[in-house]
Each structure stands twice: as C-alpha cells, then as structure tokens.
C-alpha cells in the first residue's frame, strides 16, 4: 500500500481518527506522517475540543427532551428559533447556536446545561455594555443598594439605612425618566 499523501513511498503509519463516532483511517509514509504530526502541533486540541464534550453533555439533555415528547400530554413541536430557524436538535448536534435569539428560544432547556458548564452559576455578574446597557446599569446598582440596605437594617444602623433608601429613590426616579424620556 502506498502513502495516501505523496503516493511515492510505502505507507508505514496507519492513523485512525474517531470524531463524534465518525471513523477515518489515514495510511501514510514516515515522512508525511511526521508532517501531519507537525500540523497537529500547530492545532492544539484540534482533534478533541470542549465543543465535542459539550455535544456529549447536550445529548444527555436531549434524552430528557425525548422523554417529554413521549408523554401523553406532549403536544408541542420541536422548539426552534424564530429568527434563524435553528432547531434544538441541530444545536445539540453542533454545540453552537445559530444566532443570539436562540438563547431566548431555547431558554428553558438551557438552564441545566449552563448550570453544568459554569459550576452552578446562571446569572451574569460581569461587564455591561456601556452604551446599550443604560437602564441595566441603574437597575444593577439599585439591587446592590437594596442588599446593603438589608444588611444595614439587620445591624440596626438606621441612619445609614435612611441614606441608602434616599439613594435608591433617586436611582428609581432616574430609571422612570429613562423609560419616559426614551433613553438618557
């Protein structure tokens, strides 16, 4: 048998790849195998990535979905995204969404997945876009202040609590004007 790459030298290296259950076999000579090896070097983790693991996790979720389907009360068709028309089983297959709206379309199925991927966390706690985040910023600060307020009340620091209450009122009025004034 000759090497599949160069068709010059006899094949001495037989490479079997199984990716997502699909098996491919490569027959290569020493030189070409070495070259391939160097290519692998350049692609860290090219063969097996987090996405493949993810597809595995999702298949488990899919199981739950199918058992719901077999229930006598099941009437819905398979969930799909109205914006890019990706179905949930397509997502499960490739591990990637079609568009940002998919998150809304599949929200109820995503909770267990996100919980598993991110060690239980389900709520974003980081950066908020500066320009489009307008009202979100205010609401986040209100939430934070409400927490501080509760702590202050618990510690019977009533003067401090009153101050915080004023701050919350101010922010809430800002939030109102934000919606009435159509932004900023």
């Amino acid at each position: 048998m000759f090497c599949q790459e160069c068709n010059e030298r006899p094949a001495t290296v037989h490479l079997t790849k199984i990716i997502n259950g699909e098996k491919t076999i490569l027959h290569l000579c020493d030189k070409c195998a070495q070259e391939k090896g160097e290519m692998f070097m350049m692609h860290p983790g090219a063969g097996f990535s987090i996405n493949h693991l993810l597809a595995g996790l999702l298949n488990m979720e899919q199981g739950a979905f199918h058992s719901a389907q077999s229930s006598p009360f099941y009437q819905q068709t398979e969930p799909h995204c109205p914006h890019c028309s990706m179905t949930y089983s397509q997502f499960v297959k490739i591990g990637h969404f079609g568009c940002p709206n998919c998150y809304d379309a599949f929200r109820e199925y995503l909770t267990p997945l996100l919980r598993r991927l991110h060690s239980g966390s389900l709520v974003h706690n980081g950066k908020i876009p500066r320009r489009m985040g307008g009202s979100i910023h205010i609401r986040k600060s209100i939430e934070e202040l409400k927490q501080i307020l509760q702590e202050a009340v618990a510690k019977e620091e009533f003067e401090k609590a009153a101050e915080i209450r004023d701050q919350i009122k101010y922010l809430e009025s800002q939030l109102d004007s934000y919606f009435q004034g159509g932004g900023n």
Partner: protein
Amino acid sequence: MSIEKFLNQALSSWMSGDGPESDIVLSSRVRLARNLKNYRFPTAFSSEEAKEIIEKVYNSVKDKSFPGIGPLELLVIDDLQPLQKRVLVEKHLISPHLAENATHGAVLLSENEEISIMINEEDHVRIQCLYSGLQLFEALKMANAFDDVIEDYVDYAFDEKIGYLTSCPTNVGTGLRASVMMHLPGLVLTREMNNIIPAMNRLGLVVRGIYGEGSEALGNIFQVSNQITLGKSEEDIVDELQNVVKQLIAQERAARENLRKTSNIQLEDKVFRSYGILSNCRIIESKEAASCLSDVRLGIDMGYIKGISKNILNELMIVTQPGFLQQYAGGPLRPNERDVRRATLIRERLKMEN
C-alpha cells in the same frame, strides 16, 4: 534573508520576555468574545451578513490611532497566502479555526502584535490582548478598552440575565478567557505536574500542553486558563487565575531549588548536553528541539549557562515551527528539509549570542 532581519520581522512584543515573572510565565492573554445583535452567528450567517460585520467592526477602529498602540491594520484571511496564515497561527495572533475553516474571516492587528481582533471566527468579534510575562490585569484593561471602542459603533448581543451571548454556551456571560503560558520544567522533572493538573481542574481551571497533543507538553510549556465564564465578574475570574498562577510559580521555584539540592550535577549535565545538541546539530526534529530548548532555558534561569538571553526559548519555540522555517527559507520545504533548516536556524541564533 539574514537571521537578524528574519528575527526582527518574526518577533512580536509578547515574545520579548521582559514582562513580570518572565522566568516562568512566558505570556498572558485575555480574550473577549462578542457578537452583534440581529446577525446570525458565523456557524449560520450569510455572506452578506459576514461582510456587513467586517465593515461595521472595521469602521469602529478605522482612522483611529490608539495611545501607545497606534492604528490597527485589517487583514482579510482569504487574501492571505497559506504560509502567511500559518505564520499568524504560529505567533498565536489568529486561531487555527480562523485560518483554515472560517468563511469571511478577518483580523485587526496592532503593529506590536499585542492586540488582535478576530472577526467572524466562532463569534463575530474576538478581542485578544497578548502580553509578555504575568500581566493579566493589564491585558484585561486593554481588552476592555477596545471592547468599549467597538461598542460605541455596534450593538452587541447582550442579555440582562446571562450576559454577552456567544455562539457556544461555554463562553456565555463574560465571554472572557484568560490564559497564561508557563514554562514548568521543575514540576515536570519532579513529577509534581501529574498531581497539579487534576487539582487545577477542580478549581475550574484548565491546564494543557500548548504544543503537542493531549497531556504531553512539548518544551514543558503549559497553558492555564479559566473554564467558567458565567456568574463571576471579569476581575474575579482574572484574580482567581492570577492567584493560582502565583502559587504555581512558587511551587516551580521550590521544585527547581529542590533539584539543585538533590541532583545538581545531573541537572547541570542534562542542561549542557542539550546545549551541546542545539549548538552542534545538523538535523533536529521539532520535538527534540523543544525539549532541548526547555533544558537550556532552565539552565539559563538557574545560572548554569551564562551569557545567553532568556527569551531564547520563547523566540525559538515559535520560529522553529514549520510555517516560520519555510518563511525563513523563502519557500516550501519537505519535512526532512525542515529539520535541517531548523538545526541551522538554532545554531545561527546561538552564535548571535557570542
């Protein structure tokens, strides 16, 4: 091409090896994944959408010069030669996926190559800042600044509850991946690495060899990065990673001291044998080169070898890869020709030191 000229063109700022803790931490990287509202992700988008995305993102930085960085240059992946793409991958400026599989991919690069913004990779926008040594917070600050510049012009896909929406749910939330490339020969020689990797996984961090497959780490170079992107703030994610990296640095230093005490002459022998190979070889494979380079770098750090600059490992690990070797040769090379060229390049680089 002369070796001086070649290296001048080849080296990025992050390879300079002058950042903090750079005896152990080779580089720090922060990547932010972002997507534009109302456009399908690259897995599903049309050519028209792809082109509009490139244009929108490019317009946000076009004709601007950033303090200390200068302007960003747009490279369209389809316009590049295969060898040029490969060199960008070897320098870690673009991902293999963008080079090989992405349709309508592009990258915005700063001249010092610290900033690269990939367009239409797995996500519409991936902002990457790559710094020498341990500078995670600096990299985060810079990535955030470019994020704000782009957000001034485009509407990001953002959900109040789950944050920045990404093509893959493993990145949702902050879209932040922070990673550090570390040279850990002491922990490998003392076999402590085998215990460290599972412990790191339990902390929500991933450790892998950056060159080589699976658990094998060519040149004893490991990449440590965060896995979780949702539920924590960017600062907390980076802070947690930084704390673990600092512990790893301390353990690596302790392992090296331990080796000096218990097997000084054996270690010195290993270092100088590798130095001998690198300065005299006529043919060398990438694996052997990586392992010898790691030994020599350890020898420099521990004071066995004097008069050779430290960044030799960072530099030669990159420029002895196939793409760079072919660029240095000025044309395509067969694998066995590469091994010869690699040996020549390493010998010439070592001669520059004396």
